C-alpha cells in the first residue's frame, strides 16, 4: 500500500520545512549585494580612479543587474565581506582563484565580442595563461585595455625568442612603438589560418580576404596580378621572409638573395605549378658574377607583375 499523507499532515510538513529554512537562514544569512559605493570606504585607492576604468561603465549605466555592476560585478556580493571587516574568505578574491576560474569570471561578460570567440581553445588558455597575467584591473599604468605593462613587454615576458627577433638589425618597428604585436596576432585566440595547409602559425590575425595579415599594410603586394609569383600566393610570405626580424636586409631568410631563390629555382622535377620544377636561371646569368647575385635588382616585381612574366617591371 502506498504511503499517503493526510492533508493535515502535508501542511504540517510544509510548515516544518519553512521553519527549518528560516532558522537556517537566520544562522547564515544570504550574502547580499550592497553596491559599489559601500566599497569605497575601505578601498578608496581603487575607487578614486575608478571613473577612469572601463568597468565604471557598469556603474554609470544604472541599468545593470547588481551582479553585473561595479565591484560586485567581478567580486560578488559584498555584504558578508563588509560584516566581516574584510578578508579574502568573504569575497570573490582573484588572487585565490585558479586560472580557469579567472577566465570564467572575466568571460562572463567579455566573451561577447567575436575577437574573443576562440579564447577558450587558444594556445594561451591551453597553456594556463589567464586574463590577469596580462591585464591589471585596478590601477593599471596603461591607458588602454587595462594592460599591466606596455604590450610588447607583456608578450616578451613569455616569448623571449620573440624579443630576440625584434632586437635584430632588420625588424618590424615594434620596439620603436610604431607597431604592436596585436597588429598581426590575436592574443585571445584566432581561427586557424586558412591560407596555409598546416595549423601554423597560431594566434595570427588575417587580412581582408582571410589572407595573411602582412597584406593589411603591404597592400601593393596583394594583387591580383596577371603574373603571380605562385609561392607568394600558395605558400605565403614566410617562405622567403622572417616576419619578426632578421639579420638580413628586408627580413629575408638568407643573407644573399640568389641563394634563397636558387633553393627553389634548381630545376628539380615535381615542383611548381606544372610539376616540371622551377627553372634554374638561364645561361645569361653567371652566378659567380656578383651583379647577378641580387636577383631582385632586375626582377623588381617579384611578388607579382602585370606586364612581365619574369617580374622585371
Amino acid at each position, binding site marked *: 500500500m502506498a504511503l499517503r499523507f493526510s492533508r493535515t499532515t502535508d501542511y504540517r510538513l510544509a510548515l516544518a520545512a519553512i521553519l527549518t529554512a528560516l532558522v537556517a537562514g537566520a544562522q547564515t544569512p544570504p550574502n547580499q549585494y550592497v553596491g559599489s559605493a559601500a566599497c569605497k570606504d575601505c578601498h*578608496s585607492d581603487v575607487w578614486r*580612479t575608478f*571613473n577612469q576604468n572601463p568597468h565604471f*561603465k557598469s*556603474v*554609470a*549605466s544604472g541599468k545593470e543587474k547588481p551582479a553585473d555592476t561595479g565591484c560586485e560585478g567581478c567580486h560578488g556580493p559584498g555584504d558578508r565581506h563588509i560584516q566581516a571587516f574584510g578578508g579574502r574568505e568573504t569575497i570573490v578574491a582573484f588572487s585565490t582563484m585558479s586560472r580557469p576560474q579567472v577566465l570564467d569570471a572575466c568571460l562572463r561578460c567579455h566573451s561577447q565580442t567575436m575577437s574573443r570567440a*576562440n579564447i*577558450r*581553445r587558444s594556445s594561451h588558455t591551453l597553456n594556463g595563461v589567464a586574463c590577469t597575467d596580462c591585464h591589471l584591473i585596478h590601477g*593599471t*599604468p596603461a*591607458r*588602454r585595455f587595462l594592460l599591466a*605593462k*606596455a604590450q610588447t*613587454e607583456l608578450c616578451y*615576458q613569455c616569448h623571449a625568442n620573440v*624579443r*630576440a627577433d625584434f*632586437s*635584430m638589425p632588420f625588424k618590424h618597428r615594434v*620596439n*620603436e612603438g*610604431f607597431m604592436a604585436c596585436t597588429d598581426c596576432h590575436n592574443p585571445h585566440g584566432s*581561427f586557424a589560418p*586558412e591560407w596555409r*595547409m598546416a*595549423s601554423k602559425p597560431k594566434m595570427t590575425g588575417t587580412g581582408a*580576404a*582571410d589572407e595573411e595579415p602582412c597584406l593589411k*599594410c603591404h*597592400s*601593393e603586394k596583394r*594583387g*591580383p596580378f*596577371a603574373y*603571380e609569383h605562385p609561392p607568394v600566393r600558395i605558400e605565403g610570405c614566410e*617562405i622567403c621572409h622572417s616576419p619578426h626580424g632578421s*639579420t*638580413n636586409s628586408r627580413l629575408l631568410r638568407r643573407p644573399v638573395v*640568389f*641563394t634563397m631563390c*636558387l633553393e*627553389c629555382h*634548381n630545376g*628539380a622535377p615535381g*615542383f*611548381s*605549378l606544372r610539376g616540371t*620544377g622551377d627553372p634554374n636561371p638561364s*645561361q645569361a646569368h653567371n*652566378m*659567380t658574377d656578383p651583379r647577378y*647575385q641580387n636577383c631582385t*635588382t*632586375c626582377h623588381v616585381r617579384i611578388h607579382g607583375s602585370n*606586364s612581365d612574366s619574369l617580374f*622585371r*617591371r
Partner: protein
Amino acid sequence: MTLQPRYSRPGRGATGASLAAAACLLLPAVCAAQQTDARSQGGGWGDYTVSSSFETGYRFQTVSGNDAEYRSTVNFGNGIKLLDNSFTMNSKDGHGRWFDEILLTTRGLGGDPYESAAFRVQKNRWYRYDLLWRRNDYYNPGLTTGGATGAQLLNTGYDSQNHDLTILPQSKIQIFLGYTRDSQSGAGISTVPGLDATAVYSVFVNVRRLRSEYRVGNEIRLHGFRLTWTHGWEDFKDDGGATLNSFSRTEPYHGTSPYWRVGLFYERGWFAVNGRFSYTAGQRGYLLDESTAGFNLAGAAANRQVAAYGTAQRPVAAGNLTISAQPASKLAVVNQTSTYNVRTEGNSAYTEFDNSTQAVQYAFFEYLGIFTVANRTNVNYQAKRWLSFHGGYQYTDRRIRSVQQAVFAGAPAGPAYEQVNILNSGLGGVRLNALKGLTLTAEGEVGRTNHPFAAKSDQNYHTLLGHLRYQYKSLRLLAASHADYNTNSTAFTAYSSKSRVNSASASWAPLGWLALDASYSKLHLDTVGGIAYFAGAQLASGQSYYIGNIHSGSLGVRVVLKKLATCYLGYSIVQDTGDGRGNPFGNATGSSLPAFQAAQTYPIRFQSPMARVSIRLVENVRANFGYQRYGFRDDFHSLQDFGSNTGYVSLTWSF
C-alpha cells in the same frame, strides 16, 4: 622580460610625475615612445577628471661608418620632438554631456621616423570613436646612384590612419562604421628595359600608392547567439611611372575589393559553435604604356614600344566552422573545418613592337586557382588538477590549378595543370604543474604531405616544443625550446632545414626600488638545398649549405631612488657567429660550390648599450636624459659597418 619596481599606485601618494618617469623607463633609451603611458591621478575640471603628461626634448645622433646602413636599421635623426604625450578626460559620474572619455596619446611627433597618435572619444552607451594614425619613414640601401659619394635613394614614407566608430557599444545591437587610409610615397626601385634582348637596368621611380577602405557592420546578440557582419570596400591605386631622356612609362593600376565578412558565435553550457565566413571580390584594372628609344649594343638605332592592359579578378571565399564540446568536466573536444577558395583570373593583352625587327609578341593571363579544405580535431583531457594532455589530428587537401588563358580569337588556350597536395599531421602534448608556481609544457607535431609545391615547402616535418615557467613572488623564470625540422627531397635534389630556438629569461624585483631582467636566446639555422646554376657556360650543380647561429641577449637594471630619480641601464646584443669562420672563402665545411662558399653564412654583430635617467625637478616636472649606442659589424663586408650615438634630453610635465 621586464618587471617594474613596486611603485606606489595612484592614490597611495605617488605623484603623476613620478609615475610618468617610472613608466618612461620601461623601454630602451631612445625609444621614448612605446613605454607604458603614465597614469597620473589627475585633477578635476568641472565634471571631469583630467590627467596629462608631455615629454618634449631634443634628440641627437652621430654616425660613423655606413650612414645608409644606420638609416635602414635605426634611422633616428636630430631635432626637437614631442617624444611622448598622453591626455585623458574622464567624466566623474559617467554621465558627461557629450562624452565620458577622451584619450589622446602621441609618440615621436616632430619628425621621428616612427610617429603615431591614438585618439579615443566615447560616451557610455551611445558611441565610441577610435583613431589610430601612424607614419613610418622607410630607408633601405638600394642602388648606388651618387657616384663616388655612394648616395642611396630608396626612401619611402608610409602613412596609415584608421577610424572606427561604434554606435551603441553596450547594446545588444551595435553598429560599426570604419575608414582606413594607407598611402606610400617616395623613391622606389624599378627597371628600364634595354634595347638588347632581355637586358634591364635598374632605376628609381616615384612610388604613389593609396589604399582606402570603407566598412560598415553590425553585431546582434540574441538568445545566446552573436552574429556579426561587415561589408567593406577596399580601393587601391598605384600610379607609379618613370620618365627618362629616351624612356617613358605610365602604369596605373587601380581596383577595388568589396568584401563581406560574417561571424557567428553561440555558447551554451558544454557546447559552443563559432564560425567565420568571408567573400572578397578583388578586381584590378591595369595599363602599361612604355616606349624606349636609343641605340643597342651594336650601336644601331632602335626603339621598342610596349602596351599591356587588362583586368584581373581574384574572388576569395573562405570559411571556418568550429564546434566545441565539453562532454565531461575534464574533457574538451574541438573540431574545426575550414575552406579557402581563391581564383586569380582575368583577361589581358600584351603587345610588344620592336621597330628594328618589326616583330610583335603577345602574352596572356595566367589563371591560378587554389582550393583548400582542412579538418582538424583536438582533444584536451585534464587527468589531474596538475596534469593535462592534449592531442589532435589534421587533414588538409589543397588543389592548385593553373592555365594560360587565351584572349584573342583563334589563339589556343594553354594546357591546364592541376596538382593535389594532402597533408596528414598529428600533434600531442602534456602540461604539468609539478610544484606551486612551476609549469612544464611539452608538445610535438608530425606532418606529411604528398606533393609539396616548392622545393623548400613542408613535406616531412616535425616540431618539438618545450616550455618551463616558474614564478615565486617577484621572481619569474622562463625557459623554452622550439625545434622545426623539415625534409623535402626528390631524386634530383635533397632539401632539409633545421631550426632550433632555445631561450631563457629571468626577471626579479628583490626590492621595491630595484628590478632586474635578463634574457638569452640562441637560434640555430641549418639548411641544405639542391642547387643548379650557370657559372659562365658551365652548369654547376651541388648543394647550398646555409648555417646561422644567432645569439641574442639582453640585460636591464632599473633603480628608483625614492621619488627623486629613476635610472635604467640596459644592454642588448645580437650576434650571428655563422659557421665559425672569419673570412668568406676557404672554409672546408659546407658547400663546395664557389658561388655559395661566401654566401652560406653571414656573421654579424649588432649591439646596443643604453642608459636613461629621469630626475624630479619640481612636483610635476622631471628632466630626462637618454643615451643609446648602436654598433653594427659585418664580418665579411666591413663597408656595411656603422656606429652611432643617439640620445635625447627632455622634460616631462604631468598633471
